[in-house]
């Protein structure tokens, strides 16, 4: 078992390197001098330009730049913005907002998603099932930002059930509407996955055996099928955490939440390379870790998968 964990950890390393290299390339190998861009129309004296380039390693060959960056990462130094602020501290300020947003969305999609999925799975082929299918199809089809605006308009402005923007009301109130919107896509997936899984398992031979043993319908569903059915769902939920973080870019924009999603978007526009790379690296790390945890969890849940 531990061999498996170690092996997976080792597998993560090249992926991590690869992805960060990819991002680094995309950001820094692209045309344009970010320092000049930052300065805008004002021409910078050559000495200042030189000093800044020196500071941010912009004159070094690309590989060296990347190497130095990695080195810094290992010491927890995510670099500095062009205005001298530590990227790490910038993230720290905004991190909690995104975490709360993603967390709310995650809990929402898990509870409501599984709930709907179980309901639909039990009523396979009947009206309730079709209704849930229809609803989830709708949620998947409408792009998140459209849902976001519509929700903001309807529930925020017109009905005034939720605050329309900002974090003044703290958790959970400020994060409810954005969280629900962010989680709506994942909710649809979770519900469908649960439904299909449950419907399939309910037709399995061992369900018939359990019934023949005189087990009540409730017990058959809960004890025998639910656990098996939830396995793919849990793995999806684990991975989705990473997706939610990434999806926050759009939602934070709509609801004006000062999280890292909003930050990274602004930084991309402003060509603040170090911030972009820093935040992306962070997100990638989270995503890879979530994947790893899910993989390990899977082994606990399904005894047929014993690490080979």
């Amino acid at each position: 078992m531990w061999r498996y964990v170690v092996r997976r950890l080792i597998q993560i390393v090249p992926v991590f390197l690869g992805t960060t290299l990819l991002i680094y390339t995309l950001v820094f190998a692209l045309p344009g001098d970010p320092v000049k861009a930052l300065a805008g129309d004002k021409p910078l004296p050559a000495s200042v330009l030189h000093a800044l380039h020196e500071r941010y390693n912009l004159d070094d060959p690309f590989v060296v730049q990347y190497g130095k960056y990695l080195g810094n990462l290992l010491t927890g130094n995510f670099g500095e913005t062009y205005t001298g602020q530590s990227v790490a501290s910038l993230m720290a300020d905004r991190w909690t907002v995104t975490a709360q947003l993603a967390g709310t969305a995650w809990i929402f999609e898990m509870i409501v998603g599984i709930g709907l999925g179980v309901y639909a799975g039990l009523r396979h082929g009947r009206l309730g099932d079709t209704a849930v299918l229809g609803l989830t199809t709708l949620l998947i089809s409408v792009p998140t930002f459209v849902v976001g605006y519509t929700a903001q308009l309807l529930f925020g402005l017109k009905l005034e059930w939720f605050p329309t923007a900002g974090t003044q009301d703290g958790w959970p109130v400020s994060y409810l509407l954005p969280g629900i919107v962010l989680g709506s896509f994942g909710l649809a997936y979770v519900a469908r996955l649960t439904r299909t899984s449950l419907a399939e398992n309910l037709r399995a031979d061992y369900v018939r055996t359990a019934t023949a043993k005189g087990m009540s319908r409730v017990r058959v569903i809960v004890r025998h099928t639910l656990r098996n059915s939830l396995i793919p769902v849990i793995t999806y939920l684990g991975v989705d955490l990473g997706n939610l973080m990434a999806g926050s870019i759009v939602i934070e924009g709509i609801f004006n939440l000062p999280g890292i999603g909003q930050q990274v978007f602004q930084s991309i526009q402003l060509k603040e390379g170090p911030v972009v790379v820093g935040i992306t690296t962070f997100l990638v790390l989270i995503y890879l870790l979530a994947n790893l945890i899910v993989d390990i969890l899977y082994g606990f849940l399904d005894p047929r998968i014993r690490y080979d």
Partner: protein
Amino acid sequence: MTETAEATATATAGGDVGGRRASLWGDAWLELRRRPLFWVAAALLAFMVVLALFPSLFTDLGPNKGCVLSSSKGGSTAGHPFGFDTQGCDLFSQVVHGARPTILIGLAVTVGSLVISIVFGTLAGFYGGLLDSVIARITDIFFGLPFVLGATVILVAFPDHGVGAMCLVLVVLGWTTMTRIMRSQVISVKSMDYVRAARALGAGDLRIMFRHILPNAIAPVFVVSMLNVGQVIAYEATLDYLGVGLQYPTVSWGLQLNVAQDYFTDFPHLLVFPALFLSVTVLSFIMLGDVLRDALDPRMR
């Protein structure tokens, strides 16, 4: 369970189980034909495609033409059922023109991703070993990159965001899902007895891949690609909305939504119509994909 399953299967086939030869796609088509959802989705889709191919059937105006600034954001009046956008252009005409780039990108990207996924997935699944590991790692790397982030970074660097550039970006970032599925399908088909039989008869690698593995592995990939079109369209719209996608003077639904965001509280029609068309298009692709999946899945019968 064998007898009950057999009895059910016979009842559904309504007759000659021993008689005619059933093919997966033939059966799927028969199943599809019977389902109203298929026809609804197909009709909607056909409508959107016609909209994209022949906008002139629906509106006399060209994209961004006939705009009168003074009508900016006006509501619907005679001859202008959707009202006007912020530039004073007829919103109905704009929405009609918005179909083309959207659907074009959706289809082009999916076809591109499909081709890549077939090639990489088959090679990885078939040959296994080092090639597989490398491809799997590469897939993981791209998979780990948050999509919107990656796309935004690339697009911000290159100011020209034409349809071609968008397609490229979306393919580069989106090929991973289908490749994974293709690969796992190939792996499971590879161990089937008929492949072994073909090998024993002396078939070479390429022949096995094309004639035996590919046709049997491709069904789920096909289904996913259909669902994928919808997703690509949604992504493209999101990028447009973020301002890093297509730019003026291209007309697209995502762009229309981008513009709408500042005014929709007072002028909801700016949001409603593009959003409606966008959602319906994505919806019909997804419905089609769903129906197709159910029809191709022998267990769901």
